[in-house]
């Protein structure tokens, strides 16, 4: 201890002299601690635009943009990607995709689950915790009779069910990205719980808070568009990209919401869209962004 103190004291003047003698070097890119190997990343991309909500048609184009970005900037291999779009994005198809991943994902791999489409808060099935949870409105040819019928008949998928499917996977790191209304309504079910810390690291990127609308225009969902633009600007990690997308989406949504309220396009209380990140173990800080 004493010797260490000596070394520290003796070296300090030398270090100061070195700083004074040379021009400061250009800043180095911050090193990412324990980065995830891109070769270990798998993606399950699900996009559900409903024929009974015909004005939202952004699913297929947004999935293509997301996957292009994942391949080009995150380094995801094309043969590590499973895609379910529109009529292929039914709840049974999503369950089947998870079953296949359960048998095929390498132990210790990383899975990114990306969902874009409609979402709705429904009463939580179990007692305790939140009174509501998020349900992913997976594809169906016609509108269900009522939301809770869609949940209980298995036509839709709740955050609880998604969490159960994730739990069964051999992947070590799992990132869920939900671009849908009320996306943070799934946080209690998907975001890490202490019991999971030992075996899995799970993070949730939510495009909107519970009780908030997620916006889309004719070409893209607002959060996805901002997230992909932020990723393509290549900050060090996905974490910084999220922060940029969060700021951009909130600002954009506030303007849209105000305009919509003024024009009477939305006749109910209109809230801004505030993306949230639930990532207590820093998974998004380990996903590097770079040119492939």
């Amino acid at each position, binding site marked *: 201890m004493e010797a260490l103190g000596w070394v520290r004291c003796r070296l300090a003047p030398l270090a100061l002299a070195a700083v004074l003698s040379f021009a400061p070097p250009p800043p180095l890119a911050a090193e990412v601690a324990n980065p995830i190997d891109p070769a270990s990343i798998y993606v399950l991309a699900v996009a559900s635009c409903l024929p009974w909500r015909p004005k939202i048609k952004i699913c297929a184009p947004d999935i293509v943009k997301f996957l292009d970005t994942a391949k080009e900037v995150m380094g995801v291999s094309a043969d590590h990607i499973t895609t379910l779009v529109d009529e292929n994005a039914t709840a049974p198809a999503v369950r089947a995709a998870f079953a296949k991943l359960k048998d095929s994902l390498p132990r210790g791999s990383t899975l990114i689950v990306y969902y874009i489409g409609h979402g*709705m808060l*429904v*009463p939580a099935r179990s*007692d305790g915790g939140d009174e509501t949870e998020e349900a992913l*409105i997976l594809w169906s040819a016609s509108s269900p*009779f009522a939301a809770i019928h869609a949940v209980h008949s298995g036509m839709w998928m709740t955050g609880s069910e998604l969490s159960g499917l994730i739990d069964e996977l051999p992947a070590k790191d799992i990132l869920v990205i939900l671009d849908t209304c009320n996306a943070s309504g799934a946080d209690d079910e998907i975001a890490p719980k202490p019991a999971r810390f030992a075996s899995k690291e799970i993070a949730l990127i939510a495009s909107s808070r519970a009780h908030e*609308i997620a916006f*889309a225009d004719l070409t893209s969902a607002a959060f996805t568009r901002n997230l992909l633009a932020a990723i393509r600007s290549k900050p060090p990690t996905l974490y910084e990209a999220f922060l940029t997308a969060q700021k951009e989406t909130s600002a954009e949504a506030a303007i849209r919401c105000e305009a919509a309220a003024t024009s009477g396009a939305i006749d109910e209380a209109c809230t801004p869209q505030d993306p949230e990140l639930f990532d207590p173990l820093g998974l998004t800080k380990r996903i590097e962004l770079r040119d492939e």
Partner: protein
Amino acid sequence: MIEAMFAVLMLSTPAPNISIPVEMGPGDLPLGTFCRIQDVCVIAQTEADCGKISGKTFTTLDACTSAVPAAATQQEK
């Protein structure tokens, strides 16, 4: 067991679908409610629909199925 207690009751036609172009939600789709009629739980679109058949509404299926049947309550009285 859930299936045994579970039935779908279509008491009215779905509400008209009024789309909002910028919202990624279910539109006017009704949430629905669990409706207990004697010892059977069904789903009704609205509380009013449930009331039309003298049912009692519940938020969750668990609450609906675990409620004391009306007949038993009357016997206890």
